[in-house]
Structure formats: C-alpha cells, structure tokens
C-alpha cells in the first residue's frame, strides 16, 4: 500500500518514487530538469552532519537539496 510523504522525511537508505510536485517555481523546474520527475525512483543516501541538506540518488547520480526544498516534493514509499 503506497503512501505519500515529503521527500525530506525519508530515512537513510529508503527508496521511493516521486509522486507529485508543487506547481513549479524556477527552482523546482531545475529539479525536474535534473531528472527528478513524477515517477522517478529516488533513494535517500544521507543527511548532512548538521541535519541539512539531504543527499539523494536519482538516475544513477547523487544530488543534494535542502530540506526546505525537499519537503515540497511528495514521494511514495512502497
């Protein structure tokens, strides 16, 4: 049973599939251009030592984003 949670709440090592985005501002457009699209699988790799930003793996590469950004991206954990 899939449930939608913000990307920022994933625990280390959890994989999920991007479900939905806010209607895009400039920054979220760039996140899409980096390949993070609805339907894309992502894995939370780690959280920075001070608790922010987070590191995710998407399409085989590593990307960081701040929690304040990641909380707008909803993902489905299977």
């Amino acid at each position, binding site marked *: 049973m899939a449930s939608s949670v913000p990307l920022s709440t994933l625990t280390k090592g959890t994989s999920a599939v991007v479900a939905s985005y806010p209607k*895009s501002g*400039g920054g979220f457009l760039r996140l899409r*251009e980096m390949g993070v699209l609805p339907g894309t699988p992502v894995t939370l790799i780690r959280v920075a030592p001070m608790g922010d930003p987070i590191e995710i793996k998407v399409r085989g590469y590593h990307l960081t984003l701040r929690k304040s950004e990641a909380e707008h991206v909803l993902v489905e954990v299977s």
Partner: protein
Amino acid sequence: MSSLRSVELPAAARRAAGARSPTYALVGNPNCGKSTLFNALTGLKQKVGNYPGVTVEKKVGTAYTQHGQPLTLIDLPGAYSLAARSPDEAVTRDVLLGRRADTAMPDRILCIVDATNLERNLYLVHQILDLGRPVILVLNMMDLAAEQGITIRANRLEHALGIPVIACEAVNGKGIIELKLAMSRPDLPLSRHAWEVPAAIAPAVADLQASLIANDGKTPLSARAEALLLLTDNDEVRVTGSAQLHPRTAEILHGWQRRWAGESTDWSAALVQSRYEAIARLAAEVVHRAGQATTTLTDRIDAIVTHPVWGWLTFGAVMALLFYSIFTLAQPPMDWIEHGTEQLGDWLKQSLPPGDLTNLASDGVVAGVGAVVGFMPQILILFFFIGLLESTGYMARAAFIMDRLMSRVGLNGKSFIPLLSSYACAIPGIMATRTIEDPKDRLATILVAPLMSCSARLPVYLLMIAAMVPNDRVPLAFKVGLMLFMYFVGTAGAFVFAWLFKRTLLKGAPPLMIMELPPYRLPRAKDVLLQMTERAGIFLKKAGTIILGISIILWALSTYPKSPASATPVQQIEHSFAGRAGHILEPVIKPLGFDWRVGIGLISSFAARESFVSATAVVFNVENVDGGKKGDVTPLRRAMRDARWPDGRALFTPLVCLSLMLFYVFAMQCMSTVAVVKRETNTWRWPLFQIFYMTGTAWVVSFIVYQAGTALGF
C-alpha cells in the same frame, strides 16, 4: 537587431563557412570532463579572457585536424540546461542562440556527455539538438561506465539521433583521433531526432516561433528551439552584453505565461517531462546495464567524508592544510619578491641620475609592480588547491557539510572557502567566489570577505598590542586573547553584514541548493596547473593594472609638493599632499582619538594595511622598522608611547590603541581589494559601496569605543 541577423547565417552560407574552417562550441554538464577534453583537443593553444560585462571565463582554443587544418573551439561554461539559472549558464545559452555581439554564433556544436550518467547529460543535448545545428556527440568516460557495468551502444545512438557519436576517454586521449576526424568532416548531418511537444503547448510554440522569425530575425529551426526554451526559462537569468528579445516577442511570451499561470497544468514542467520521456526511449535502446549496482569507491569515500565525526575531521584537516599553505608556504616567495623589489628600487636609485623620474621608477612603478606580484604566491597556492578540490569532487562535499551553517546568514555552503581564504588575503578569497553560481550569494560573499582579518592587518595588530600594553608583565595570554578577539570581531561582522545584505540589498527568492555530488576522480596535474596559471594571469592583467596605477598616485601624494632638500623625512611627509590630507582628516578622526599623524598612517594603508607600520615609523622619525614583520618594533613603540597631543596628553593610550585596532578590523583600506572587487563585479559601484559601508562601520565602532571608554575614565 541587425547584429542578430548578421550572425545567423543562412544554411548555405554556413555550409560554405564550414568548408573553410568551422567554429566549434564545446558544451556539456559540469563534471563531465569538458575541460579535460578541451585541453586534449587544443593543447596549450588557448586564450582565456572574459565575456565583456560578465565575470564568466571565456576560453577559446585552436585544435588541429589530422591534416593540420586549424579549427576554432570555444569552451562554453558547464551547464545542466539552456534554461539558465546562473550567469555561467546564461552565457552558454546566449552564445548558442547567437544573442551575444562579442561572440559569433558557433557553426557547429560539440556536446560532451558523461557516459556513467547518460540520461541527465542527454537532457542538455536534447535541448541543443532542437537548435538545428550540426552536432557531434562525445560519449566521455566510457571506461568508467564499463567499470560500473554500463554498456552504451554508440552506433545505435548514432543511428537513432542521426549525428556522429564518438566514444571517448578524454583523460588518456582515447577517441581523440576519431573525434578530430569527425570534426574535420566538410559536412555534418543535422539530427533527425524527433520528439513530441505536448499538444496543448503547440500553439504557444508556433506563436513565439513566428514572432522570432519575423521580429528577431531567426531561422525557422532555431526560432522553434528558442520558443521552446523561452517557454521553459521562467527564471529569466539575463547577463550584460546579450541581445534582448524584440518587444513584440516578449509581449507574446508574457501573454502565454500569464495564461498558463491561471491553469492547473504546469506546462513548462510538461515540456521537461516529454523531453525525459524521449530520452528514456533512447536510453532503453542504447544503454545496457549488467547486474546490480554495487558500492562504488565514491560511496565508500563519502561514507567517511560526510560522516558526522570523520567528516568534520576530514574537513578540518583539508581546511587547515589549505589555510596553512596560503599562510606559510606563500611567505618565503613573498619575502623574496619584497626583498627583490626593494633591491631593484635601490639599484635604480643608484644607477640613474637622481630626480623625480628615478623616484617615480623606483618608489612608484617598481614598488607598485612589487605589490601586484607580491600577491601571486598566495593566489597561485589558493587556486591550485581550489582546482584540486573542484576536480577531485571534494569541493561539493565541503559545501554539502557547511551549507547548514552558512544558510543561517543567507549564504550557501560554497561561500565558506572564499571566506576562509580571506583570512590570508581578501584578494584570492574574492577571486575564489567564482565557484558560487548564485549571483546574489556571490556578491554578498564578495562584500563581506574583506572583513575577515587578513594577514596584512597582523603587523598593525601586533604593533598596537605592543604599544597598548604598558609593560611586559602582562601575561602573553592577554595579548593573544586580544589578537583573537580582533579576528572574532571581524568574522562576526562579516556574518552580520552578510545576513543584513541578504535581507535588504540582495533580497530575492532564496536560491535552491540543488547541487550535484560528482563521483570522486583523480585530477590530471596538467588540467589543475593550467587552470591555476590562467586564473593568476587574469589577475595580473586586469587587477594588476589598476593596482599599479593607484600605487603611482599614492607615491605622488606623498612626494609632492616637494620640500627643500634640507627637509627631514618628517617635514617632507608633513608638507606633502598626504601630510596635508592627514591634517584635513584630523577633525574627522579626532573623535576616535586619532591625530593627523595617525591620519597619514591611515592614508598610507591604502597601499597595503601593513604600510601603517612603516608610515608611522617615518612620521615619528624612527629608523629601521622593517615593515614591522620581523624587525624590532621596540624603538617605534617607545616613540609612540612618548607621542603627545599639543596639550601634552598622551596620544597612544590603551583606549586609542583599541579604537585604532577596531578601525583596522572594519575599514576598507586596501586598494588592491578595491581593484579586485571592481574586476569581479564589473562596476565601480560595489567597491565604492564597500569603502563606504566598511569605513563607515569602522568609524562608528571606533567612535563608540573611544567615547564610551573616555566617559568611563579609561
């Protein structure tokens, strides 16, 4: 708009030009090996400059085909997308679209992609194929892809896209010959790749395309590509020197954007989605992954360097090494340069007939050149480290772990290294801000960097602490504590002002910290060294000339008008423009506890802050003070303790020394920094602002401390 038309050649003319010697633009994502490929293709035949009006590096080189025919190659800044989000990306977009008058639109495009990360890299390629220009695709790092079990069938990709696809390993030169052969082909096919623009968007694209053809003089193909881009590019990063859209086209664009804003579907997102769908279909056809992804070396290194404990230790060690190198390794060559400059000046004085011209040559020109060259060791060392940190991939990790801290004052993790370097010298620190993509974060970092106490303030602090402490019975810890306090005050000031600027002057939507953590790679010494010398060369050429000019002006100020030959150095300097300025300045600085003689010291500091020590020595008629660095400051200290106001009060009371030190913490007194800020911001506005806000703060802080201290009876 006629300039646009002149670069947008009709296809036939372009083919004719191509037959002679086509110009290539090299385009790719950051970290895909673009610089390495550029160096491999051009060797040392490259020229580095700047795009006029923006601080984005412009690299142009010449590659030779197998038949010795020269090809011009422009290395465009790394970009993830043509929908630019930084000045770097905006330059790449504008050159490719022929929007820049300073750079002719390239005839052909060389797209380089990282084979280990094909899908995301192909996004930019996908946008570029729309431009309707001949493209060669370079699949770089095929060896690393193979190691990860990724096989890419280059011939299938070539067939699907209809353009030459060359597998390559730029690091060891594999595939370069094949690439050069492709580059020297007289005619290159245009891509036949087709993808579906969402139906709902098609009218907007057609509308804009028509206006771009009619009003902006574009060809149909590039107009379609630009229309697609404009509809996605809602961030609108603009750079100076690029042509604006025709008002009619802009109006149509805004009309569609307004319309879309009211709809529930995000159409620019839909465009991205359909590109990625097309890329996924391509990838399914050409990429083959063997087995499961295993833990890579990068994963293992990252487990350590971003670890809550080991990560900080690694970071601390790297930063300590960087800081230590700038501070100490640079010292011997800086001493040699200083010594050499002095000797050259003395030699000139002895071998030329005495006179103003000789003085100009020895004290103005040679001293000025010495000041410029004196920065080189620190700049070279810092740029060597930055090049190393960038090309290995550690730079992104440093930004990753520092981001939380820097974000508290509105900056991002990338501001840390420039600020740290500024403890040694603000000049390399400010030049290092080029690694910060966001223009506002970069400017905020530049504005506060000179508040970090640099090594030139050290002699001033040392002298003041020596003059302040009445005898040597005061514990050393007190002196050290006072010194550290000055560093602390400067650092705190930098963070407070950064916070303030980001909330007022440089306000805007907070930039997203979307950053790639590239795989660790072993850098090539050649690439790092080349980058280091190129950046240092830019400093010499651009900032160096301004510094030299100001040196000569400062020399003239302390030399003219001339005193009679019998005058002592004290009388000469008092009589000079600088001395008079000191007197004029006195009413302004008296509330801080300074007299005109301190005023002369403050003016001399504009050459370099440590000049305060030598200027003070001249004013108080003390000989043999060797810049206060290794020389004995005892005679100067004694003279300063004996210094009196006309009414007999002591001049350098402990309170005045404290006030003066705090003035040095905050004041913008370094002409070289002014020159570099002008250079890096492309306007006199920001360096002037910096002089005003820093020196203003210095005055206010010193005023409060001196007046409050006096009132309290110190």
